[in-house]
């Protein structure tokens, strides 16, 4: 007598081998494809970041020349932004869990979903090709500012084509998610019972749909400027280089919210589970995601206070920047209050989530210094900014990504990692992170500009400290990944609902069945109602 293999998505009955993955339309398999792709690029980006830090360890030439340094920070930025952090949350965890969280069998357009991943892959490959062909790796910075980007002999045109294609991937994911969340919610899954992670993906998807086309247009314009010599940004032919900066940031500032909103969503899901209490102010958090997405599209000019833009514009953009800070502050207060009178357990997902709150707050508060017109003038384009955005993107989104890995991946693998290993790794990363980036903030306040291959002797000590921090962080990261993946493939079994989550993904077998739900779910309670979840 043979027993049928358990019904889970690892035992897909259709295709076999690699094609059961790269041609699969199952949202879980696509989620894992995204996960491993973005993780790979994250590690590439980290390696480049470490090289940058080694170069900056001491003044003068350490391991590379200026042209190499410039290419490396550009590639580091492009890889981290366009290949890791923008597609990261929606692509990996959005795909893995969102359909399950709303009680659906898959996303609304599974084939389009697969196509998005292929577009992502195509864009990534084109960017990689651009590094080694033509005039060599782009050296413009990830911001592609004209006129430099139209004059440089490096391979900007091809890289821009790659990013353009990535944009389409993002738009299609956005369309897919908005449709899925509107149309495929299970019976009883009202809008106020949506888990906050799904809420945040919903807000994010709208930003992806509405903002990304502007990136596409901007990239087409750079391309035509370089290839056809249109002169739209060339003052000697009636063009305006500042126009480019507006176009670029009209997309790229909202893109910051594509990066951070899903991270806030996962934090809002994790904190209640590990405190055994409903989230404090559910509606306010859900609403503030939408508020951030909307108001965030009106603040792009704060990247340009020193550009020569009119003072009236500076006034308005500075004002709006402070307004959009408020919903983020509200979320922080809500997370902290959720802890009150809870029963808190400090397992790995929770540690990453709590450190998210701190690092994100530091990033956000230093953002206020950049949002105030007077103080921005001093720290704009310095290492202060480099410190600031790493706190938000890495300390914020990055740490939330690690929280999500420790929270959800065992659910999909059915095995789990050692808590002790994860906690050691977390501690190293937290310390290393702050040493690395806090030093950068101080360097910036002392006046060290960013994108500097070399620096004056007065900046030596802090640069060395920062580089040492990068090594501590790297060791922590390595331990974290080894511990996690050893656990997922060979660790102790993970079954049932060990964290005691109340959202739908915790109600189905582990690993999830191919169709997610054995019978159609009917939702009868909110996402943070922990009665009957096994843990007190």
């Amino acid at each position, binding site marked *: 007598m043979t027993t049928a293999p358990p019904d889970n998505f690892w035992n897909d009955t259709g295709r076999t081998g690699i094609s059961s993955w790269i041609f699969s339309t199952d949202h879980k398999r696509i989620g894992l494809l995204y996960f491993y792709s973005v993780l790979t690029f994250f590690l590439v980006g980290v390696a480049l970041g470490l090289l940058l830090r080694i170069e900056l360890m001491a003044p003068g030439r350490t391991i590379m020349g200026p042209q190499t340094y410039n290419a490396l920070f550009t590639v580091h930025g492009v890889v981290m932004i366009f290949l890791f952090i923008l597609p990261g949350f929606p692509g990996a965890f959005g795909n893995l869990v969102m359909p399950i969280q709303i009680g659906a069998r898959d996303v609304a357009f599974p084939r389009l979903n697969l196509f998005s991943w292929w577009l992502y892959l195509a864009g990534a490959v084109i960017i990689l090709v651009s590094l080694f062909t033509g005039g060599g790796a782009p050296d413009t910075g990830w911001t592609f500012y004209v006129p430099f980007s139209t004059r440089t002999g490096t391979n900007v045109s091809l890289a821009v084509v790659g990013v353009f294609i990535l944009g389409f991937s993002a738009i299609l994911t956005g369309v897919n998610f908005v449709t899925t969340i509107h149309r495929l919610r299970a019976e009883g899954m009202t809008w106020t019972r949506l888990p906050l992670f799904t809420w945040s993906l919903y807000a994010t998807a709208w930003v992806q749909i509405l903002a990304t086309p502007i990136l596409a247009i901007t990239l087409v314009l750079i391309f035509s400027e370089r290839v056809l010599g249109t002169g739209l940004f060339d003052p000697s032919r009636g063009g305006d280089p500042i126009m480019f900066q507006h176009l670029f940031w009209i997309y790229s500032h909202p893109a910051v919210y594509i990066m951070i909103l899903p991270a806030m969503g996962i934090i809002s899901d994790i904190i209640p589970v590990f405190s055994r209490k409903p989230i404090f102010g559910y509606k306010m958090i859900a609403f503030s995601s939408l508020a951030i997405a909307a108001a965030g599209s009106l603040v792009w000019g704060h990247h340009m206070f020193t550009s020569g833009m009119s003072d009236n514009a500076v006034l308005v953009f500075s004002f709006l920047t402070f307004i959009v800070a408020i919903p983020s502050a509200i979320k922080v207060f809500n997370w902290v209050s959720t802890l009150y009178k809870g*029963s808190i357990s400090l397992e790995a997902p929770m540690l990453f989530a709590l450190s998210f709150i701190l690092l994100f707050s530091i990033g956000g508060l230093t953002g206020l210094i950049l949002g105030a017109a007077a103080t921005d003038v001093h720290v704009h384009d310095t290492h202060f900014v480099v410190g600031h955005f790493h706190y938000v993107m890495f300390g914020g989104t990055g740490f939330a990504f690690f929280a999500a890995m420790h929270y959800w991946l065992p659910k999909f693998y059915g095995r789990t990692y050692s808590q002790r290993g994860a906690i050691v790794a977390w501690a190293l990363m937290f310390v290393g992170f702050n040493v690395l980036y806090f030093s950068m903030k101080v360097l910036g306040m002392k006046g060290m500009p960013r994108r500097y291959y070399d620096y004056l002797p007065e900046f030596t000590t802090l640069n060395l400290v920062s580089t040492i921090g990068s090594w501590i962080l790297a060791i922590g990261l390595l331990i974290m990944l080894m511990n996690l993946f050893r656990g997922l493939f060979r660790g102790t079994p993970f079954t049932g609902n060990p964290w005691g989550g109340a959202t739908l993904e915790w109600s189905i077998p582990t690993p999830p069945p191919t169709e997610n739900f054995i019978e159609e779910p009917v939702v009868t309670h909110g996402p943070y109602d922990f009665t009957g979840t096994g843990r007190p």
Partner: protein
Amino acid sequence: MNPAALTSTTEAIDPVFMFIFGACLVLLLAITAVMLFFVIRYHRSRSPRPTSQVAGNLWLEIVWITLPTLLVLAMFYYGWAGYLSLRQVPAGALEVTATAQMWSWSFSYADGRTSNKLYVPVGQPVKVELVSRDVIHGFYLPAFRVKRDIVPGQKNQVWFVAGKPGSYDLFCSSYCGTNHSAMISTVEALPKAEFAAWLQNSGKGKTTGIDGKKLAEEQGCLGCHSLDGSSGAGPSFKGLYGAPRDDGKRRVVAEEAYLKESIREPGAFVVKGFQPIMPSFDHLSEEEVSALIEFIRSVK
């Protein structure tokens, strides 16, 4: 914050900085303290079960929407006021034009004096007109807290005043290519009399022929072309005169005609292995170009 009452740009910025920084620090410490307290007090070992299932509190939320709103509005206001004083140039300012090009600075004064350092008199406000010859650069004086992008085709300006004599860092803050981090200079603040003497001095220098070496420094040639044979962004001047040049299609010898063309119209012939990044120096007079060529010839 009335700009007229300010004696320096630093004074306009630093109090705003301290205010925002202080408020942020207090907030951060408060959040951290409360969070740590909750995590310790309500840890599972002390609090095996949640003792409340409260899911919100309207009044609390109203309070913590209102208070931060007021706080950030204050920050906005002070930030804006400080910014305005950076924008209003005091009367009686000395006018200097800063010309930025990849990757050097040139400062010129009303009477035609040029220099690659920014000499200023102590105590007198200085207004700097910012001109770019190629891409976007940034004029940044950390000591005076001023920064402004230098955008081709656009008239940007900054002002500052040096309170004490001394030498202050001047950086290019806006990324501009290979040697961006080497595009640095200094502000040299001299006592008034000394500054006047320095400015005078130049007048004389001008009538007695042109010093090719000085011109090469002032125009920033030496930022890219070394004198010791090492290759920078451009070929070294050492041994250049009379050497064969090859752009992949043609071969020529670097003599008068070639050098002149290379200075006036650098894009016409780009030596193999280099990028076409040198800006045109068409604004130089015939005599100045000759002086430069004479100087290049002298570097053996």
